[in-house]
C-alpha cells in the first residue's frame, strides 16, 4: 500500500473523533471541555470560510458573523418556530440538518448579493461596506419581533452535538481545500496575488469574487446554525462587528491563506478565550479586586496589534500542513 496516497486528513479527523469520544465516555473529558471543543470546531468553520474570502481570494470582509447570524436565525426559526422540533424525537435529526443547510443557503444568497458591491471596491472600502452589511443584518434581527427582537430567539432545541459539528467542520475544510486545489481555487488565488494579471490570464475576476463570497457565506451560515443549536439561542449581539473581528483575529493569528493556520488558531484562541474567562474570574475572586471580563478582550486586542506589528504572517504564513493537503495528481 502506498502510504503517500492515504487520505491523511480523514484519518486524522477519525482519530480525533475516537480520542475525544473515549475521553468523554471515560469521564476524563467533562461536558464543559466538550462544549469548548464544539465551539472550537464551529470556529474552525467560521475561520476557514472567512479565509476563503480574505486569505485565498484577497478580499476583505468584516461582516462574516452577519452571515452566521443569517444561518442562525433562519435555521433557528425553522426548527423552533415553524417545525417545532423536539430533541427527544429521533426523527427530528433529518429536519434539523435540513434546517441548518437551509440557513447556509439563505446566508449564501446574502453573500452572493454582497459579493456585487465588493466588486468595485478594494481593501479599506470593502472592509467598511462588509461591516455595514453586517450591521444592517444585525439591526434587522434586532427589530423583528417574531424572532425575539433585542431579546433574541430563545428556546432553540439543542440538536448540535460533537458528531454533527465535527462532520460539518471536516466537510467544510475538505470542500474549501479541494476548491483551492482546483482550477477554480487557483483563479481565486490569482485575484489575491494580482488582480490585473489574473484578468489578463483570462480569469473572470468578477465571477470568482462573487463565488468566494457566496461559498464563504454559506459555510458561515452553517456555522451560525450549529452555534444556535448548541447554545440554544440566537441573539443579535452574537453576530455583531466585534464577533466578526474575533474570527478575523483567528485567520491572522493562524496565517492568512493557510487553512492549517485557521484550524490551529480556531482551537488555540477558543481555548485561550475560555482560559482567560476562567482565569480572570478566579483572579477577581481570589483577590477581591474588581477585575472585569473586559480584560479578556483587552488581551485579544493586544494580540491582534502584536501580530500585525511583529508577526504579520501569523503562525503558518501561507504554508499548509501535509496532513491537510491532497496528494498531488501526477
Amino acid at each position, binding site marked *: 500500500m502506498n502510504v503517500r496516497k492515504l487520505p491523511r486528513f480523514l484519518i486524522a479527523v477519525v482519530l480525533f473523533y475516537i480520542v475525544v469520544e473515549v475521553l468523554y465516555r471515560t469521564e476524563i473529558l467533562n461536558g464543559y471541555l466538550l462544549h469548548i471543543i464544539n465551539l472550537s470546531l464551529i470556529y474552525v468553520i467560521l475561520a476557514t470560510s472567512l479565509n476563503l474570502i480574505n486569505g485565498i481570494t484577497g478580499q*476583505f470582509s*468584516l461582516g462574516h458573523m452577519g452571515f452566521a447570524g443569517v444561518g442562525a436565525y433562519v435555521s433557528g426559526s425553522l426548527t423552533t418556530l415553524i417545525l417545532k422540533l423536539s430533541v427527544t424525537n429521533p426523527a427530528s435529526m433529518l429536519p434539523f440538518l435540513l434546517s441548518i443547510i437551509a440557513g447556509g443557503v439563505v446566508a449564501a444568497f446574502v453573500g452572493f448579493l454582497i459579493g456585487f*458591491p465588493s466588486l*468595485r*471596491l478594494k*481593501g*479599506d*472600502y470593502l*472592509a*467598511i*461596506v462588509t*461591516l*455595514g*452589511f453586517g*450591521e*444592517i443584518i444585525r*439591526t*434587522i434581527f*434586532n*427589530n423583528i419581533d417574531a424572532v425575539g427582537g433585542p431579546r433574541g430567539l430563545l428556546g432553540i432545541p439543542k440538536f448540535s452535538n460533537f458528531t454533527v459539528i465535527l462532520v460539518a467542520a471536516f466537510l467544510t475544510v475538505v470542500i474549501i481545500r479541494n476548491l483551492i486545489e482546483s482550477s477554480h481555487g487557483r483563479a481565486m488565488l490569482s485575484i489575491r496575488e494580482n488582480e*490585473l494579471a489574473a484578468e489578463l490570464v483570462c480569469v473572470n475576476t468578477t465571477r470568482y469574487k462573487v463565488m468566494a463570497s457566496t461559498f464563504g457565506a454559506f459555510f458561515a451560515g452553517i456555522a451560525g446554525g450549529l452555534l444556535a443549536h448548541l447554545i440554544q439561542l440566537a441573539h443579535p449581539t452574537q453576530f455583531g*462587528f*466585534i464577533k466578526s*473581528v474575533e474570527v*478575523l483575529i483567528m485567520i*491572522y493569528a493562524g496565517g492568512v491563506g493557510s487553512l492549517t493556520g485557521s484550524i490551529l488558531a480556531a482551537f488555540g484562541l477558543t481555548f485561550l478565550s475560555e482560559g482567560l474567562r476562567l482565569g480572570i474570574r478566579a483572579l477577581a475572586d481570589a483577590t477581591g*479586586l*474588581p*477585575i*472585569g471580563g*473586559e*480584560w479578556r*478582550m*483587552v488581551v*485579544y*486586542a*493586544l494580540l*491582534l*496589534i502584536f501580530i*500585525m*506589528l511583529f508577526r*504579520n504572517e501569523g503562525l503558518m504564513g501561507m504554508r499548509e500542513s501535509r496532513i491537510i493537503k491532497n496528494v498531488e495528481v501526477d
Partner: protein
Amino acid sequence: MGSIFSLQQILNGLQLGSIYALIALGYTLVYGIVRLINFAHGDFFMIGAYAAYGSFYMFNALVAGRSGTLAFLVLLAAMIGGASIAYLTNKFAYKPLRYKPKLSSLITAIGVSMFIEYFFSALPAIGPSYRSFPDILVRKEIRLGNAVISNLVIIDLAVAAILMVGLTLLVRKTTLGKAMRAVSQDKDAARLMGIDIEKVISFTFMVGGAFAGAAGLLAGMTYPRIFPYMGILPGLKAFIAAVLGGIGNIPGAMLGAYIMGIAETFASAYNSLIGEGIAFAILILVLLIRPRGLLAEKIADKI
C-alpha cells in the same frame, strides 16, 4: 410633534451633523495624508467625552460659578485628551507599519479601537456602564413657533463652525497646513522639499484627535450620557459622512456630515429601524453610485 420635516427636526439634524462633522474631519484629514481609515478615531471621540467629564469635576470647584470659563477649560481638556490619544496611537501602532501593506494598518487600527474601548471599560475607575454627563452650562430654551431652541443647539453649531473655520485657516494659511497639503498630494515630493513627513502626519493625527475630542464634549452635553463604547456608532457614521463627501476632502466631510445628521434625524423620526440603518444604506448607495463621494476629484491608478 407634527411633521417629520419640522423646523425642530432640522435643528436636531444640524446639531447631530455638527458633531458628525467634527469627527468626520479627523477621518478625512488622516485619510488624506496616510490613506488609512483610522478605525480608532471614534474612540478618540469617546476619550474626549471622558476627558471633559473628568475635567469638569476637577475645575468645577476651582472656577465655581463662572460657567463660561469652566466650559472653555472643559473644551480645552477634551481637545487635549483627543489629541494625546491620537498622538500615542499614531506613534505606537501606525508609524511602525507606515510602509507595510495598507491592510496591516487597517487591521491594527481595528485592534487599537478594541483595545481602547475594552481597556477603558476594564478600568475600575471608568467601567463599562453609562454615566450621566453633568450640565456644564445652565440649559436655556426659547420657543420659535412649534420649535424649541435650546442654547445647546447654538453652542453645538457655533463650536463646530468656529473649529471648522479655524481648520480651514490652518490648512490654507499656515506653513504647517501647507505642509499637510503637500504631504497628502505627493509624499516623495514633499520629502524632497525638506518636509519632515512624520512630524506632519503626527500633527495631522493630533488635529483630528482634538476635533474628535471637542465632538465628544458636545455629544456629552447634548445627549447627556457617556460610556466606553459610545464612539463606535458615531465614529462609523462620521466615517460614512466623510466617504459621502469624498474622503480626503475637507469641505466634503462637512457637507457629508450635515447631510448625514439631517438624514438620520428625519429617518429616525419616521421609523427607528430605518433610523438605525440609514447610515449604512447611504454608504452602500454612495459606494455603488459615486464611490469617490460628492466632492472628490477622480484619481486613476497608474498601470
